[in-house]
């Protein structure tokens, strides 16, 4: 169990992380979300022990994270952290041995992962000669090569195409099934929505939304109605509780302030209008994120 207890980190007068707490259990994937500069990377650095928190502490299975446990941790930084002049094997040996692995074990693990990511021909290539996507794969392998108990992934899907995003997701899910504690950040809410159980949304270092995604969505009062048919949009917008009407290519999305207005809209549309589709949906995580972050900035 990873416990982050009331951590605060100051950069001079700036509070980069403000009294943040959360817990992630074994086999859980936790999303740390926020706009740029919200404090995600600082939180990761505090967890890794790279920065010391001004207040609060971080424990892994009840023990403070120090150099006696870092061999069990995998860390993928947001920016490329590879030595560009090294070849892939040397780079992997470098980071692998620093994680306490034997060189032979590192090499055999590397072969396995290179094969899995379809880049085994790059084993002896210099990092700087690889494309951004392939560099990201190498960086990802450096984070998982030691089969970490705690896997920290800061923007793992940056620079990847959808096929490779799927490949990464499959691997992350495998680690989850093996019982690893996984924390990751992403700007893409659809990624978070796909496989995170719990999340925290940071704004200026403070948590503005946290909990299980299903609970967050349930508790979030706004709803969307997707309809198909001949609708007078000008009138629809004027109905009670309608926040916005969005015309899509094939249908129309009506955003409601609260689910209590659903029946009113249904009654309005039932009056002589040719409706072929009426579906009430929960809002996407992205909508919740934008709304919550926007509210926090307004405050």
């Amino acid at each position, binding site marked *: 169990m990873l416990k982050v207890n009331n951590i605060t980190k100051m950069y*001079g007068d700036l509070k980069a992380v403000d009294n943040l707490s959360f817990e992630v259990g074994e086999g859980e994937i936790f999303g740390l979300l926020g706009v740029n500069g919200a404090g995600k990377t600082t939180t990761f*650095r505090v967890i*890794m*022990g*790279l*920065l010391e928190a001004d207040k609060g502490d971080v424990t892994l299975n009840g023990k403070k994270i120090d*150099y*006696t446990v*870092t*061999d069990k*941790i995998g*860390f993928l*930084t947001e*920016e*490329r*952290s*590879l*030595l*560009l*002049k*090294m070849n892939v094997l040397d780079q992997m040996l*470098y*980071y692998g*041995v*620093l*994680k*306490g692995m034997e060189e032979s074990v590192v090499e055999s693990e590397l072969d396995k992962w290179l094969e899995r990511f379809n880049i085994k021909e790059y084993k002896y290539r210099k990092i700087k000669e690889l494309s951004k996507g392939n560099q990201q794969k190498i960086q990802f392998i*450096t984070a998982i090569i030691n089969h970490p108990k705690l896997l920290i992934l800061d923007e793992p899907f940056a620079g990847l195409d959808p096929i490779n995003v799927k490949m990464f997701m499959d691997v992350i899910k495998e680690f989850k099934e093996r019982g690893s504690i996984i924390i990751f950040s992403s700007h893409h809410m659809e990624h978070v929505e796909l496989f995170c159980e719990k999340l925290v949304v940071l704004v200026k270092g403070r948590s503005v939304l946290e909990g299980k995604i299903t609970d967050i969505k349930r508790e979030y009062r706004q709803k969307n109605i997707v309809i198909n048919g001949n609708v007078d949009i000008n009138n629809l917008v004027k109905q009670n509780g309608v926040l916005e009407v969005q015309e899509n290519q094939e249908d129309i999305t009506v955003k409601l302030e609260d689910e209590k207005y659903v029946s009113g809209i249904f009654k309005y549309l039932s009056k002589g209008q040719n409706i072929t589709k009426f579906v009430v949906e929960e809002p996407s995580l992205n909508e919740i994120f934008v709304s919550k972050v926007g509210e926090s900035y307004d405050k």
Partner: protein
Amino acid sequence: MRYLFPKWVKVMINKLKYLVKISLRKKIKTKWFVVVNALLIILVIGLINIDSIISAFGGDFNKPTNIIIMDNTKEVFNNFKQTFNLSQDYLVDYKNISIEQSNKTREQLIKEIEDNKNIVIIVDFDEQNFVKAEVISNSFIDNTLNQIIISSLNTSKVAYALETSDIDPTALAIINKPIDINRNILDESKSEQEETYSFFMGIIFPSFILPFFMLIIFLVQMIGGEINEEKTTRSMEIIISNVSPKTHFISKIIANNIFIFLQASILFVAGLTGLFIRKVMGAGSFNLGPEFDLNSMWQSLVSTGIVSRLVYVIPITILLMLLSFLAYSLMAGILASMTTSIEDFQQVQTPIILISVLGYYLSMLAPTFEGSIFIKLVSYVPLLSALLSPPLLLIGQITIIDVMISFVLLIGVIYLMMTYGMKIYKVGILNYSTSKIWKKIFKAVRD
């Protein structure tokens, strides 16, 4: 080991060894290391044998120079030749110079020197019956050779004038006898012979320190470059998440110092090889004039007893150098951790390099400014003491106590850098912003 330290210490030592290995491998396992060192070896051997190389290619310098004297006085030739031979050691190519007398006419001799390096000297009497001379050559005469010719002619003129005067032969013999000087140095620790050679040792010893000075610059640049590479590529975050900043810092110091010693050893072996080749080829000593004939000078130094000082000056020099390498490494590492790019580090390293340049120049100036309190005080300054103390000690301008003061100060600075510099390093290596850098550093030192 198993029972002495906890397991994690053993793990950290293994990681330290690996960091050192990787750091060294990155430098040695490159084609540039091989290429540059191959070039260095060739250049060092070439420089040591430069006179043989120059001679092998030939040129006008190889042509013999004949000094042909047309002595119309019939009195000067022998004296001139004798005086000239006494001074000819000052000439690099004296073996190529001959002196002969000729009975040919002026016109004939001028015609003969048109295509060669011959020098014709026509000696005659002037109206007052004093010796006068005309020196004729095809082109410029080497400055030293010219000075020796003029000096020899002057001596011959005076000698002839004295001989033909009415001075009593006994008095003349006394005049021509070298002056009897009784040199008396009141400081009993200093011998007369030493006096002659201390000046030259002051010049020669700094030239032995030159490679050390170059290696310092090399060391500073390497440590700075390596730390900055890891910082700018952000790989530092991954490294520091697995090993402590202290381990990382120590690994950089060990690896780069090992590399420097390896590099110095290569240069040393190249130097020895060059000397061996020189000996095999039968080349003479480095004859740059009588004072700089190293072979004869070494013999003289042994007889003066100055060499006996080397017995303790050399170990002191080596120890000071080792400590100075450590001090420069620590300083380079700390400064590199504070900078955010290699360009920034290049600017920061300039003062370090200038400090060592200052030490090097002062060590050369020391014999000129004998007894200078400023130079003596500067010799205490850590980072400069390795460059300055050994030559000053060798030429007797400072004592062992002064050197001890230098040692204490240097060790003190190393201790301070290891204690507080490590704190700065820990904060600096993960700092990517130049804003409020000094505030962050002071905070790190305070904490």
